């Protein structure tokens, strides 16, 4: 055997490897440090140039120096060689280096396997549609590199077709595994902590400007689908952390434990499903007021739903709510006292105004009216870009700047109410959402982040008051875009009011949502739903394993049957020829002609030779001469005359 030459690569093979390597590593250029991208690009270019010029690949020492240098650089960059980011960086570097020592088929196979593995690592960064599409193309290229290694010299187009066919053939098996493989909640490979850094969302502290900052992000916070018709926009208050502690500038969530809420629904219950994007916190952002919560979720005593663990991946919940409700008609005295507490000093003018209102008002409800009227009548402006406030922020806002965003209004309103002796607190969350008519989902973005107030009246319980509505009612009725004057720093795509653009955006978001809901969001729950539609009620791992086994064998059996179907069926002469060989316990090799076989028998087993000669003569006539039934009959007779001998 000419093994050495067989193992070396032909000139046409390396370009496929280059293409596969580039396709598998390129998207990492967006995430990895620039120097690594440059390093890899230089090595790729070097390998390509050496191929182009048909030169010798660099020697072992050069590669060793490069490897050590690369490892040290990665170590310097990440301070470790372990973990997700350095791991991916190492793989990218190995790939680039490996291309410089692709001499034999063995090396080429290593490149291909490395490329397959690298494809997987892209999902650690993003699972968007675009990434999925790119990876399909890359998978195709890598597979084409593999087929080019094994299929001999074939045309480029032919090779791509071959690889594509292979991938399509694997589709049924892929679907079976996707649908039936037991789903583990959470990602399979346990994303390390750094996967969740830099997530935007509400926090448990609020100071002037914190929500305004959030609003400039167009990111989706969550998507909702109502079982029935969606409620009116002005009723869509999604409750996040309730902020009770105030130090003069910052509102904070109180850590006191409260007794369980008493909620009384005054209207019909609304059921809906909410798909939360990962925000790294425990808030469920349920619609006010929640009546039923999913398993594992609870209320924190302030009507805010929370889950046991931070939401670190996209999750789906089913909830029930009533938009007309009464909440805690009785409240613990300690809670009421807490919600009257103000810093001992500061903001004297606001306190004076509150005392003035307290004198005028005959009932607590009138206090609220006075305050809202004040916001409405005086020249207050709703803006994302308020001027900076001084030390007495509330006074500064109420009497000097009068320009602010929801947190300014909510904060000063609650301050005024507390100063006037009415228990009040700030509620943060989201208000509204954009209804996508294409898929029926309501999309709530970070730009819908909001803060409002809640006051407690004896006999009415905690009652929502939204002071922003007094200043900019459009914010509540139509959304943030209509409420803000032109020139505010909102995401550009939200501001564009051209119909066709909005339509396009809706379409894209509907596609994206479908991808999220059904492809990425195919979790244990969806799997159960899917299987229950097929009539399987009690879904456990045993059932899944059984189904997986059955469906997998089904796919394999289908492939096998198709192969058998396409295989040329043996004609009668061929069957008799096989039978003759079995009968004498000797095999004619695949490439051995019957005459050569007869010759071999003559040499090795002269006693058998005459009978075998007769069979061969008739077999050749039956198979290679013009069709004549007599030949077949003669062959059958000759085979039957063969002595029966089996290999012991």
């Amino acid at each position, binding site marked *: 055997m*000419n093994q050495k*030459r*067989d193992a*070396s690569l*032909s000139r046409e093979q390396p370009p496929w490897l280059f293409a596969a390597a580039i396709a598998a590593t390129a998207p990492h250029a967006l995430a990895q440090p620039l120097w690594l991208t440059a390093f890899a690009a230089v090595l790729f270019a070097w390998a390509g140039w050496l191929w182009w010029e048909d030169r010798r690949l660099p020697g072992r020492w050069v590669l060793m120096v490069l490897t050590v240098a690369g490892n040290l650089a990665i170590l310097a960059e990440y301070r470790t060689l372990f973990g997700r980011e350095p791991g991916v960086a190492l793989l990218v570097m190995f790939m680039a280096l490996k291309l410089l020592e692709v001499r034999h088929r063995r090396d080429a196979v290593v490149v291909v396997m490395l490329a397959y593995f690298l494809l997987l690592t892209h999902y650690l960064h993003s699972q968007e549609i675009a990434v999925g599409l790119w990876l399909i193309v890359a998978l195709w290229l890598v597979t084409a590199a593999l087929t080019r290694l094994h*299929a*001999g*010299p*074939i045309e480029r187009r032919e090779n791509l077709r071959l690889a594509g066919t292979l991938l399509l053939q694997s589709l049924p098996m892929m679907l079976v595994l996707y649908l039936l493989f037991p789903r583990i909640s959470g990602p399979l490979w346990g994303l390390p902590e750094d996967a969740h850094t830099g997530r935007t969302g509400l926090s448990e502290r609020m100071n002037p400007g914190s929500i305004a900052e959030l609003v400039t992000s167009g990111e989706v916070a969550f998507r909702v689908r109502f079982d029935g018709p969606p409620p009116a926009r002005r009723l869509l208050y999604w409750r996040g952390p309730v902020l009770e502690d105030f130090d003069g500038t910052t509102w904070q969530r109180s850590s006191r434990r409260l007794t369980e809420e008493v909620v009384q629904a005054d209207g019909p219950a609304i059921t809906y499903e909410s798909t939360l994007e990962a925000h790294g916190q425990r808030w469920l952002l349920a619609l006010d007021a929640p009546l039923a919560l999913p398993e594992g979720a609870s209320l924190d005593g302030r009507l805010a739903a929370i889950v046991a663990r931070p939401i670190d991946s996209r999750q789906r919940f089913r909830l029930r709510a009533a938009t007309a409700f009464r909440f805690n008609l009785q409240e613990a005295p300690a809670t009421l006292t807490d919600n009257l507490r103000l810093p001992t000093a500061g903001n004297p003018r606001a306190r004076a105004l509150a005392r003035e209102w307290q004198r005028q008002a005959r009932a607590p409800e009138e206090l609220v009216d006075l305050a809202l009227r004040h916001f409405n009548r005086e020249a207050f402006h709703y803006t994302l870009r308020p001027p900076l406030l001084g030390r007495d922020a509330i006074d500064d806002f109420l009497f000097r700047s009068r320009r602010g965003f929801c947190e300014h209004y909510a904060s000063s309103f609650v301050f005024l109410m507390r100063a006037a002796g009415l228990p009040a607190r700030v509620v943060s969350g989201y208000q509204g959402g954009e209804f996508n008519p294409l898929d029926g989902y309501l999309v709530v973005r970070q730009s819908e982040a909001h803060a409002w107030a809640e006051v407690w009246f004896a006999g009415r319980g905690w009652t929502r008051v939204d002071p922003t509505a007094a200043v900019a009612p459009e914010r509540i009725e139509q959304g943030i875009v209509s409420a803000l004057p032109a020139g505010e720093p909102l995401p550009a795509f939200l501001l564009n009011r051209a119909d066709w653009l909005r339509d396009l955006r809706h379409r894209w978001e509907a596609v994206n949502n479908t991808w999220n809901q059904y492809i990425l969001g195919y979790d244990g729950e969806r799997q159960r739903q899917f299987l229950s539609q097929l009539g399987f009620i009690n879904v456990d791992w045993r059932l899944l394993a059984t189904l997986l086994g059955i469906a997998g064998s089904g796919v394999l059996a289908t492939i096998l049957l198709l192969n058998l179907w396409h295989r*040329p069926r043996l*004609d009668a002469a*061929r069957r008799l020829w096989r039978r003759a060989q079995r009968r004498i316990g000797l095999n004619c090799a*695949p*490439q*051995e*002609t*019957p*005459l*050569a076989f007869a010759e071999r028998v003559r040499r090795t087993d002269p006693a058998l030779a005459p009978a075998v000669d007769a069979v061969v003569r008739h077999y*050749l*006539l039956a*198979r*290679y*001469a*013009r069709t004549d039934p007599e030949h077949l009959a003669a062959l059958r007779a000759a085979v039957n005359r063969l002595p029966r001998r089996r290999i012991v």
Partner: protein
Amino acid sequence: MTHTKTSKADNHPPDFAPILAAANRIILGKPQEIRLAVACLLAGGHLLIDDLPGLGKTTLAHTLAALFGLDFSRIQFTADLLPADITGVSIYDRGQSSFRFVPGPVFAQLVLADEINRATPKTQSALLEAMEEGQVTSEGETRRLPRPFFVIATQNPAHQIGTFPLPESQLDRFLMRIELGYPGRDAERELLRSGGRRLAAESLTPLLVATQLPALQEAVAAVHAADPLIDYVQALVEASRQNPAFRHGLSPRAGLALLAAARAWAWLAGRDMVLPDDVQAVFPAVARHRLLAAHGDGMAAAGDIAALLAGVAIP
């Protein structure tokens, strides 16, 4: 297959053994090569003999011409040979006051093109076109070549000085390519004892007349190739296209050539049907010069051809 063709194929000549035996008496120790050469002639293809000088290439050509009763002409290819030296020229005839075409040496039933790779590509292609078309076009007039028309070209190994190797496309026009190689020890001794063979070849008595050859060729073409045999030829051609040892696979024309040569081989064995054995016997002679090695710039290695045959199961 029609009935008439079948009867023609059954209408076997008495025996080809005397012809082969006579040839074997001239070219000693090369029965296989002689058989291939005769099969090539019967299949209506042209033959390329590739070897060092002095191994009996020319003698073989003489022998075949003599035994088949073909009129013979020989063209010694040299670097200064011109196309007209092969095809012929028009000469002004003073008596008739007009041009008269004087046919070149290519107008013969068996043309020996000796050392074809010594001529320039232009001259080579003049002969090769005549081989392909069966006619010669000179000065705007097309003239048919005689029938049968059989070319035996000999060539020296390409690495010898002063040669123009035939390009792939030209090589494809030869049905078979054979090598004679050194004679065996006994054959060489016999040769040394009895002297050169060229004269003996020229004085042979014909065992056939030229007019018989077309009928024989027709009979060969009618030898039956059953579907499983066609499958085998197809499998071999496909395997050559998948095999990394070769730069390209065999063309459909090569597949046809393989089948034609196998038919002739079967017919020489006195059979009216082609067997896989026939295909295997002619495969190296038919396929090797049509396949280029994937590495280096030469013809495929004999070992790779054998490996290809060994790797294809007989359907």
